[in-house]
Each structure stands twice: as C-alpha cells, then as structure tokens.
C-alpha cells in the first residue's frame, strides 16, 4: 500500500480537478463537494507523508500531488470569497 501511496495521492488530485474544474464532465452539482473533499484529503495525505522518510521520486510525487489536489480547493475558495 505504502508503495503506491504517491500514485494514489496524484490520482486523488486528478479526480478532484476533473470533478471540480472540467465543464465537460459537470453532471451533478454534488460532484463539486466530492471533488473538494478528495482534494483536501489528497493534500493532507501529501503533507503528512512528505515528512516521512520516502525516496526522492516519491517526495516529488507528494509535492506534485499536494499541489494538484489543493488547486481546485483554492480556486473554489477564491471564487466563494469573491462572491458579491
């Protein structure tokens, strides 16, 4: 499981982006909430696992995964904050 954790986090990030930011895949409004939860989980997992002693390529994957996961969350937060 630990071996595939970095791929798992990257996958979380990609799914979060697809659910929140891809208009072509926008089917139901609830998918935004699921996408945001996935993004937050992916980001938290990336941060916690980065501190543990993993190999360099895995650390790079954690950083990438963290950025990809948090991007839709930050975008959504910004849009929400810009309302009105």
């Amino acid at each position, binding site marked *: 499981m630990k071996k595939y954790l970095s791929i798992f986090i990257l996958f979380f990030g990609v799914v979060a982006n697809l659910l929140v930011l891809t208009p072509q895949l926008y089917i139901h409004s609830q998918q935004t909430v699921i996408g945001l939860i996935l993004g937050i989980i992916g980001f938290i997992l990336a941060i916690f696992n980065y501190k543990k002693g993993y190999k360099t390529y895995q650390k790079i994957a954690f950083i990438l995964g963290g950025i990809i996961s948090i991007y839709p969350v930050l975008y959504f937060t*910004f*849009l*929400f*904050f*810009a*309302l*009105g």
Partner: protein
Amino acid sequence: MNYVKRIFSIFILFIISQIGITAFGVIKQLSLDAGEKNLNISSTLVTVILVVINILFLIYLAKRMNIIKTNHPFLTKKNILIILVATLIDRGIAIGGTLLLNMQGHTTTANDSTLIKLFSGVSPVLVVLLLGIAAPIMEEIVFRGGIIGYLVENNALLAILISSFLFGIIHGPTNFISFGMYFFMGIILSVSYYKTKDLRVSISIHFLNNLFPAIAIAYGLI
C-alpha cells in the same frame, strides 16, 4: 446656510468622483460602436490616465476640505486588526447576501451583473484599477469622509445611517436583500471610519473587500 454649502460641496465631490467611471463607460461604448469587443490598448491607456488624474484630484480636494488627514500613524496594531475584522465581516455580508439572492432565483445583484457586463473584454489592469482602487477611494471620500466627517459631524448615529443608506441606494438595489447587503456593508465601513477617524482605514477595508471580486471579474472567473 452652512449646511446648504456643505451639502453642495459633497454633491460636487460626488459628481467629480463619477468622472473616471463615466469616461470609461463612454470609451467602452465608443469601442463597442466601432465593432471592437475588447477595449484596445490606446483606449485602455487613456482611461487609466483619466482615472488616475480623477483619483488624485479628488484626494487633493478631500485634503483641502480636511476630509483626509494624514498627520497620524496609519498602520498601527489597532488599525490593522480593525481592517482585517471589518473586511471579513464585509465579505461575509456580501457572500451571505449573494447566497440569499441565489436562493430567490437571482444570480447576483443588479450592480454586480452590470459590472460584469461592463468589464467584459477590458484589460485586467483597468478592472482592478477601477473596481479595486478607484471605487474604494472615491466612495470612501464621498460617503465616509464627506458625510460622516464633514456634513453631519456632530451626530454620529445620524451620520452613519445617512451615509450607509446613501451607500446602499447608490449601488442600485433591486430588492430588499441587495439593498440590505450594501447598507450593512456601509454600516461596517462607517463604524470603522468613525471609530478610527482615519479615512485610510475605511479605504483599506473597501479596497480589500473589492479586490477579490475585481480579480474574479478581471479574469472572467465569475
């Protein structure tokens, strides 16, 4: 007689504060009439220069009328705290009001939807300058400095209410929620100004409050 003179002065200040945005509206309309969807670089540059001159002239007048006082420290701990808290409350009111409007079937306020239409195809620099910088400075000089600090300076409650009421009206509300939104935002700005007696504080709150929507409009995110 003194009151008549003061009301006239504030009215003149208000008219002057509208020159920049009116010039932008005219230039934008001329550009649309010429078949250009996007405002070209020369029109943008002319508008930026006009708006900057307009801001500087209004600040000059406000200083002459003693509305803006810069003889005391601005970035104190107290002021920074007031700016942050008031900005969060103002944003909360704006977000809450917009969500309430959404529940009633309106996408946004009439004011915001006009701004979104007006600023489509306009350089992000100009959008941020007009919405994020010019509007806060001009509205604060007229509504807070002009009405609270100059026109009705001896009755705080009345001054705050008049200022907030006019602030609400001027944003073109179409229903009670949109009026309430701007009215309560005006109350927060007015109280911040009244408590600090520093127009720079309410300008900063208004600037931070407008900055996020301005960026979102500038880049077509909303």
